[in-house]
């Protein structure tokens, strides 16, 4: 069929209006010395939230280099006070082993301060999609099954292209394939298995 009228894509996000971004997109992001420490904590928190190994979230190579910093700036600038509180709570309560953060994350997601609890969720989804669902939209969605959150806002187009949700699906973002003709005829190769990037269980 030709033209699908995807009414229900109203609730799906896709890439959002660039004009709403905090700060320039894709410009080099430099952090102050104080923020540099916070950035490392932010990565550890992000790994625990997303289930993706920290070194995969922040590879040392290629143009993706700036995206984690852009994500840091997005989360921090959304609400610097709550962001600081979230990081402080994580740092104070995290387990020594990066693979064993279930308890602290559980506490964060159930935090009495809803703004902290939902800021964490916004951060998780940002890594998955490259787009920002604001915490208050997520909080409304959790409270009301009929509430349609606003489509999310683009944080980084490179972040979209490297969005983790598509890797979790062993696929690629819609509109962005780096593969060759006919690849879809076969199952995804073993190299796309989630074991390649998921935080391993420690027995």
């Amino acid at each position, binding site marked *: *069929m*030709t*033209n*699908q*009228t*995807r*009414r*229900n*894509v*109203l*609730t*799906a*996000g*896709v*890439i*959002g*209006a660039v*004009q709403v971004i905090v700060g320039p997109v894709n410009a080099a992001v430099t952090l102050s010395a104080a923020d540099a420490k916070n950035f490392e904590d932010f990565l550890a928190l992000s790994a*625990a939230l*997303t*289930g993706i190994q920290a070194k995969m979230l922040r590879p040392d190579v290629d143009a993706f280099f700036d995206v984690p910093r852009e994500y840091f700036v997005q989360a921090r600038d959304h609400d610097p006070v709550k962001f600081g509180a979230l990081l402080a709570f994580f740092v104070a309560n995290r387990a020594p082993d990066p693979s064993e*953060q*279930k308890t602290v*994350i559980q506490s964060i*997601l159930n935090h009495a301060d809803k703004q902290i609890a939902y800021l964490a969720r916004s951060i*998780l*989804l940002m890594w998955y*999609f490259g787009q920002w*669902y604001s915490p208050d939209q*997520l909080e409304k*969605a*959790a409270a009301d*099954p009929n509430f349609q*959150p*606003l489509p999310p*806002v*683009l944080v980084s*187009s490179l972040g*979209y292209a490297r969005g983790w*949700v*598509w890797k*979790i*699906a*062993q*696929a*690629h973002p*819609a*509109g*962005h*394939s780096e*593969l*060759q*003709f*006919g*690849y*879809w*005829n076969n199952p995804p190769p073993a190299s796309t298995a*989630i074991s390649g990037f*998921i*935080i391993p269980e420690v027995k």
Partner: protein
Amino acid sequence: MCADKVTHKADVVIVGAGIAGALMAHQFALEKKQVLILEAGPDIPVDWNGYMDRFFNARIKVPESPYPPTMLLGGDPRTPVDPATLNAGRPTSLMLTPDSWNDPKKSYLVQTGKKAFSSTYTRVAGGSALHWLGTSLRFLPTDFKMVTCYGGSDSKLPKGFVDWPLKYEDLSQWYGEAENEIGVSADVSEQSYLGVAFPRGYAYPMPGIPKSQVDQELARQLTGMTFEGQPLLIRSTPAARNTQPYQSRRVCAGNTNCIPICPIQAKYDPTVTLNEALATGFVRVLSRTVASEVVVDARGRVTAVKYRQYKEEQGPETARGMVEGKIFIVAANAIETPRLLLMSKNEGRTPNGVANAKKFVGKYLMDHPYYVVWGRMPQPVWPYRGPLITSGIEGMRDGAFRKRSGAFRVDIGNEGWTFPGGDPYQSALDFVTGRNSSRANAAKEVLFGRALVNRLNDVLTHQFRLGFLIEQSPEESNCVTLSDKLDGLQLPRPAVNYDLSEYTLAGLGKAAKMAQEIFRQLGNQTPLEDQVQGTEPTAVTVDVDGRQKKIAFYGAGHIVGTYRMGKSASDSVVRDDMRSWEHENLYLVGSGVFPTVATANPTLTIAALCLRTARKILKERLV
């Protein structure tokens, strides 16, 4: 305002730079005829990236999203643009919600019927086929003779059905030409069914598109299954999508984005033909130029088309004028073409509009009402990979049952649950907020970390969906007329009256029955999901094996029927060559001429008819 000045003259004047206009303009230009195209929207962008950027920046990725005009003020879904302010407005998917579909401040189409006409289109150079899927099916031989085959005393065929004034054999050669013109990938052996025959030695320009994992797993699961005596075969869908480099365009790389836009133009779109036509030097496009009246003289001859121009999509009108020609072709789609004809009153000389003395223009509007079901396959099928659709189930496109209910075809989606709910977003949101909108999170868990990755991988890799396109019966009351609401150029917007007949509902019921049987075959672990909107404009109640079921329908984007072709002037608007019965130098082309919609997506048949008519005009009218 003073009388409109003649600003341009050409051998052929075409209204609309969509696929019909582009193909015909190209044919005329190849024979060195001067062609002028009036296009309501902006010109072809210099660089395809212009549309890709619009796409990436759109907050809501509906089919229209890469293409102007703006749908949302500031990109915010809470502030849709009022269609009265747009100079070249159009219906969009955003205008089909329960609170917008019949609100003229939100909906470009003024909907007056019981049900929402749910298909949309785009008014820019290239037209709606910019955001088509690419499906290029031929009509079946019986599609052209529904009354001959399925009429009779024991038949429940609605009286709007007629035979086409053409047979499949008349179009076979032109289907081949169209397939070569736009570049269709398929294999003759797989496409020879239900009477579709090809000339000996015919081959599609490119081999068929490889089947997806979804197709293959579904074929395995449905092995040996029949529906009403028909085996359920998974058949590759012929498509205008390159499996080899073609016309200097690249091979499909499976961007999974055909609708709304292929990033690499491996999918054919009419800008390809428009650019070829422009390169001849014999075609000129006047963009941002909206035809406002077809001018007819006292003898019934078309002498000119009047137009209004603008520079900015919500800005003031900037110029008026008219263009003269020998031959006039209106190719503005099956809603905008009747709109133009009905607007053309010629100071009272054509009080019902042009080509409309018998008052058929605008009537018999049809679509393919589209029923979507989805679920979780027992085995992983890895969707979100490959073209959006690669295969279908075609067995119910024909049969004796058409005496009583609409035929249908089935398409198999490779994009998981994107269509029904906006996955992967919806499922991810569900597991992060503890909701169950996607129905994959029945326990309303909140997950994170490893557990979330594992769960989402499991959910996403098993998703599939099916869509059922039903042949809608031609009904006189389903029609396009002029509303009293205006657009930005002060021209009346189209009004649409739409409903689904018993015959069409019976077809939907049969489709719903097939869906149930397929899911029964897939097993208890695979419950059938379909969305009941619960709201009247897009919900219907159908009979599924004696039980009433409420289902939602969508539009397929197949807008058809409003200036039908026929054997005589007493019951049709145009002849089989798409020439108006009343005005001998006026042609009305596109899917508006189809007397019936059958089950094939219309574009290939539009192309075949246009190439046939262009050749005829060149041979007989423009020597």
